[in-house]
């Protein structure tokens, strides 16, 4: 392996990793605050890409407008799903809501993706964000689009991080994430916070979908693989962690996936990623939740009204 090869793979790893970071940050804020297994993240991803692509090619809208429309569509879809599907379902299914929401989300994705295929056919479409030119720097080749992707991803993650840290909305969200029970006592309205969280998470997801569509192609099933990565990155980064930390976990996964190409052939790279994840889960020194339960085992449980 030459140094040049390492550099090239590392560059690819950074580009993919930034993309995973954005996905993970978006999924993580939803999972961390609401605890919903939002598999329909895949649908949001695809939907944003389609709206952008259709407006751009069929509607002849210039890029910033078409992209904006895609982002709004993504956020609206996320909010609508939370408001009209997850929320009533969570009320109806009580303790089983983790599982029923997962199933519901799965059904939505199957229905939505096929609806998209019905409306816009299965042929792949494209998105043109900027004039794509190759760049050669120090023997490493990438494109102007790659630069845009990396910059956009980290800009959005930083924006989310700042929102959570410095705004009133962000403080409410963090309060609801840390202790939903206490947040309710303090007069925070969890329903409204959940909607805001779905809007934000879906917005990031939509941005990832548009970038992915511009880099490769817009296809009905383009969201299936990313949602698994979003899931993995969000958990690896920690559901209670700050978006920047989750982002670093995404970057790490991208680099591992890419650099494993130095040692094994490409079809093994996803095996490497999931093996790392598996090893992480095996070696996790302590499940924090179980630990907390043990400590609290004999303390009065506020949820039971003691």
């Amino acid at each position: 392996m030459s140094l040049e090869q390492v550099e090239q793979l590392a560059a690819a790893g950074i580009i993919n990793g930034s993309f995973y970071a954005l996905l993970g940050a978006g999924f993580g804020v939803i999972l961390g605050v609401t605890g919903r297994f939002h598999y329909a993240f895949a649908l949001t991803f695809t939907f944003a890409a389609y709206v952008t692509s259709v407006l751009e090619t069929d509607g002849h809208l210039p890029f910033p407008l078409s992209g904006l429309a895609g982002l709004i569509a993504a956020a609206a879809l996320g909010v609508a799903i939370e408001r009209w599907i997850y929320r009533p379902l969570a009320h109806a299914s009580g303790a089983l809501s983790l599982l029923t929401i997962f199933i519901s989300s799965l059904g939505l994705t199957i229905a939505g993706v096929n609806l998209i295929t019905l409306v816009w056919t299965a042929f792949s479409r494209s998105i043109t964000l900027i004039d794509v030119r190759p760049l050669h720097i120090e023997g490493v080749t990438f494109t102007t689009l790659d630069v845009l992707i990396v910059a956009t991803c980290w800009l959005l993650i930083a924006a989310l991080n700042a929102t959570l840290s410095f705004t009133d909305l962000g403080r409410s969200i963090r309060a609801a994430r840390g202790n939903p029970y206490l947040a309710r006592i303090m007069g925070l309205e969890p329903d409204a916070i959940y909607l805001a969280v779905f809007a934000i998470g879906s917005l990031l997801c939509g941005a990832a979908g548009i970038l992915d569509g511009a880099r490769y192609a817009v296809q009905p099933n383009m969201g299936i693989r990313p949602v698994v990565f979003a899931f993995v990155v969000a958990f690896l980064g920690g559901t209670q962690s700050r978006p920047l930390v989750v982002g670093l976990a995404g970057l790490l996964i991208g680099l591992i996936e890419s650099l494993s190409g130095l040692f094994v052939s490409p079809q093994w790279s996803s095996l490497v990623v999931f093996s790392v994840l598996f090893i992480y889960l095996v070696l996790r020194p302590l499940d924090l939740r179980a630990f907390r339960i043990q400590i609290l085992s004999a303390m009065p449980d506020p949820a039971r009204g003691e």
Partner: protein
Amino acid sequence: MDYWWDILNLVLIFSIFAISLNLLVGYSGQVSVAHAAFGAIGGYIAAYLSTKTGLDFWPALAAGAFGAGLAGVLMSLPALRLSPEYLVLLTIAVSSIVLAIVGAVGELGGAYGMIATRAADLTPLPGGELLFPRQWVVPLLAFTALTYLICRRMGESAWGRVLRAIRDDEIAARALGCNVVAFKVVVFGVTSAFAGLAGVLLFYYNQIASPSVYGLDVSLKIFAMTIFGGLGNFLGSILGAAVLQLMQPMLEKIIQIDPGQAFLIQLVIYGLGLVVLVRVRPQGLLPEGFSLRGAIRSFKSNAATESASHAIAVAAMPLQDARCGAPAALPQQSPVILEVRGLSKRFGGIAACRGLDLDLQRGKIAALVGPNGAGKTTVFNLLTGALRADAGTIRLQGKEVRGLPPDVIARNGMVRSFQNVRLFGRMTAVENVMLGIRQLSGDWWCWPNGTRGGENLADLFLLPGVATRVERETREQAMEWLRLVGLAGVADTRAGTLSFGQQKLVSFARLLGTDADVLLLDEPASGIDSKWVDNILGLVAFMRDRGKTICIVEHSIHVVERLADTVFFMELGRITARGTIGELTSNPRLTEVYFGTV
């Protein structure tokens, strides 16, 4: 006609997947979205053996199921200490790893998979080669029935009762003496073996094993079948498999338009169907505990509810009439049953317990009192193994138990109650008590739980008579304990719906059911109506008279005064005084520490 036979066969194969997943998710609460991946392990093992070495159907089937079961046991090890969310992640990882391996290894056909070189041949059983869908129906019915019967036997028995206890409250289950680790490992192994069996059948039926047959989407579909059919109900799983598997062909028959479009419309309706169905029946088509017999029984018992509430109102049966627990054959052994020396525990910078010494006298009641935060509950957690002590010795009947897991300590005769009761909310009162009762046995084949009866798989499957007898005795004993605490009337009520006072009494009955010699009671009288306090105190004294050794943590001086033979005063993680309550209350320093004023 073959079209419908084909659909029926797939319903049957997926029923095997869904039933076994239900045992895992519905009964033991372990969420897995890797079920199809275990099918892949089974299917690929069979495919490899039959195409490369020419192995026959039956040995290939056995090898596939065994291999998948072994993989399931391996996966259970990291799964043991993961919460449901992380378990989903772990199983996604396992699924992806399995699929990546079979998709990347050239020997296994890569992305295209392996094509079978021969049909399934049932010889020596009648039926011969299975070439057409209609020939498959009877064998598949037999496999599904076998899966159903075995999973049902495991789920609807004392064994399954432990699984459901683990699902509802793992810590409480361990504290009662259930070997949670062994149960989880076995349930992962068994359910994965069934997934492997279904995977082998799928390979022989389709005559191909490829990554897409066992993909993550298939796992999710099986998962949906199980949830949708109803967790904790095996008939529901068959129904769920049938509905989801039939939805597509039904739509195909109903919506007859351009075939390309129709396929997409079917999938849209299928997806929306999942959303709607799970919304309309979040508990699933057939909820847990639903059965025809049960429905009739609950109809009959409607008339009995009135007398049940009456039973609660009346006092518990007179204790001297109780038949529970033989009067103690009074101790020839050493008078000290529990000897604790130098017990220490730190949480980071905080020493919750430092060099604590404690002796419990056989057949006496001791009380552990002290200000809040003195570490009293921590002592209980350390004694019962819920927390691991940093140093010290804990001798129970002369045997060192420090470092043993909570369930082993419980089976050795020391159990504890919880301040917040920790009943298994979705199970009935009598089931809660039955979980405390077990017939211990030292025979090697009763390993690892050391019990006879339905909690022992050997008894459950090979000696059904023993399992039935033990189950009946357990139920009788449990009813006896409930009668003792005055709650026989609510025996079949779900524990979660009882009042807090009733829950406390049930938890007391459950504790007594363990027949342990040492009972650690964490605030037995707190949080309940004063008219029941007498009741509980009477029970504690009754158990002492039967030879039990009791240690209570209690804030109420009146309770301590009435019950305790010895009082230990605890401050900042150590015992600073001991004596009778009179001696301690006459010490002005202690009363100031405890009451804040003299």
